[in-house]
């Protein structure tokens, strides 16, 4: 029963976000602040993860392709498709669910517990609209950009690792990258990243916004938000793969 109640509250929360802003300029300011927090704030971790994921993909693909009949450029093809289809969108977003999700849940939870949300409500501000909407919109703008960056850096990491270990030369890697490139894969990755962005921003916002209690409950809500977001990400990953591929 609780899960049905939670889904209902979540949908009502999303519905009540849509109201006329009290002051568009302030909403824009908040949106830009969130873009900076989510986008710029996660840039470092996304870069590090992407480069290493690409590098490890190259090494492991080369390890499994033992036949001399398969040209080395095939490694680049496999790395490209794995990074674009799965690693960049899914792995990046799972990491972001932890980094961004816990931040959103604890920020809103702290605002709830310290009555800052009540203070905004009493001023006549739609807090769902002012606090949650900019986070979701900022997620929808910045997370797909981070995923695209992760694709580029992942492939570049693979290229560097390939040449550093002598598995394949940069020229061979570049040749492989251009072979049988399917543009639809990029579309698929972006479709996933938009879906994941919505989950990463809205689920922790829900858990943070409705926190009751004190510091301990904020921690619990934060953990729950990350766990639920990750499960929903993997479920959405499966559904989108089944529907779109």
């Amino acid at each position, binding site marked *: 029963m609780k899960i049905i109640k939670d889904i209902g509250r979540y949908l009502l929360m999303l519905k009540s976000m849509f109201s006329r802003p*009290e*002051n568009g*300029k*302030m909403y824009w300011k908040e949106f830009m602040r969130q873009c900076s927090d989510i986008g710029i704030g996660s840039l470092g971790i996304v870069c590090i993860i992407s480069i290493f994921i690409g590098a490890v993909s190259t090494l492991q693909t080369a390890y499994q392709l033992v036949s001399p009949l398969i040209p080395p450029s095939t490694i680049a093809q496999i790395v490209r498709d794995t990074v674009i289809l799965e690693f960049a969108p899914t792995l990046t977003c799972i990491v972001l669910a932890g980094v961004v999700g816990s931040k959103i849940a604890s920020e809103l939870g*702290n605002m709830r517990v*310290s*009555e*800052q949300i*009540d*203070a905004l*409500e*009493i*001023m*006549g*501000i739609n807090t769902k609209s002012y606090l949650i909407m900019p986070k979701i919109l900022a997620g929808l703008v910045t997370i797909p950009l981070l995923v695209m960056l992760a694709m580029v850096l992942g492939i570049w990491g693979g290229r560097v690792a390939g040449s550093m270990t002598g598995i394949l030369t940069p020229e061979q890697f570049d040749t492989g990258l251009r072979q049988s490139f399917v543009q639809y894969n990029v579309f698929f990755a972006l479709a996933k990243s938009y879906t994941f962005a919505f989950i990463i921003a809205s689920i922790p916002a829900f858990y943070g916004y409705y926190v009751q209690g004190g510091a301990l409950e904020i921690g619990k809500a934060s953990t729950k938000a990350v766990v639920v977001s990750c499960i929903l990400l993997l479920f959405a990953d499966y559904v989108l793969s089944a529907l779109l591929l």
Partner: protein
Amino acid sequence: MIEVKNIKKSFADKTVIQDVSAVMKAGQCNLIIGSSGSGKTVLMKCMVGLFEPDSGEIIYDKKDFITMSQEEKKDIRKEIGMLFQGSALFDSQTVEQNVMFPLDMFTKDSSVQKLKRVNEVLERVKIVDANKKFPSELSGGMKKRVALARAIVLNPKYLFCDEPNSGLDPQTSLVIDKLIQEITVEYNITTVINTHDMNSVMEIGNYILYMYQGNKEWEGSNREIIFSKNKRLNEFIFASDFLRDAKEMRMLEESGKMPENRNMDDMIK
């Protein structure tokens, strides 16, 4: 003026407020007092719209707050200022940004005008040289004063204060009480204060509503409270021997029967 008529509020099976009515006038401090769990915070939250009462009316200058549309409620809320128990200052914003927030949100004033107004109210609550400080760098009393500045920056018609003195030393409590009283009179605000602080009751209680287990047990002024014969009220207000003696002395003083040889030393045992 705020009129509360027959307010009832329950949570699940538990009735927290039962049929409470009161009239809170402008230009005076209206205090809601009562022990913990008596329903005073719930009553205040009903009055500001954070809780919806099960039945009854809350009338802000002849306009019923409960039956209003969302847009009308928003308009009324722009005339409400609230000082929270924990101050509720925005952690990520400086003192200046906190106080400027309502101006940024609801006015079209220029930056210079807004800054002028912020400095005016900060000066009014005696906060100096703290514009660029964050709430974490302020003392409890300063936080309360900044929160009060934020609450009055839009010149509200109604000011709500939830436990304004909690966690403060007696001297700072007195400063906050005096500030609230002065601001109430100066701007003719209808001020509603939830408090446990007996000093506030005696100092600024123009109207006092005593709540007991969700019911209105007694109402009157700080002068009348001294002579009240209500047993529960007396047990609550004059809980210590010291306060009972103070009451006795005040009664004697008021009736002009104070013995010449009696003084405050008699109260200290």
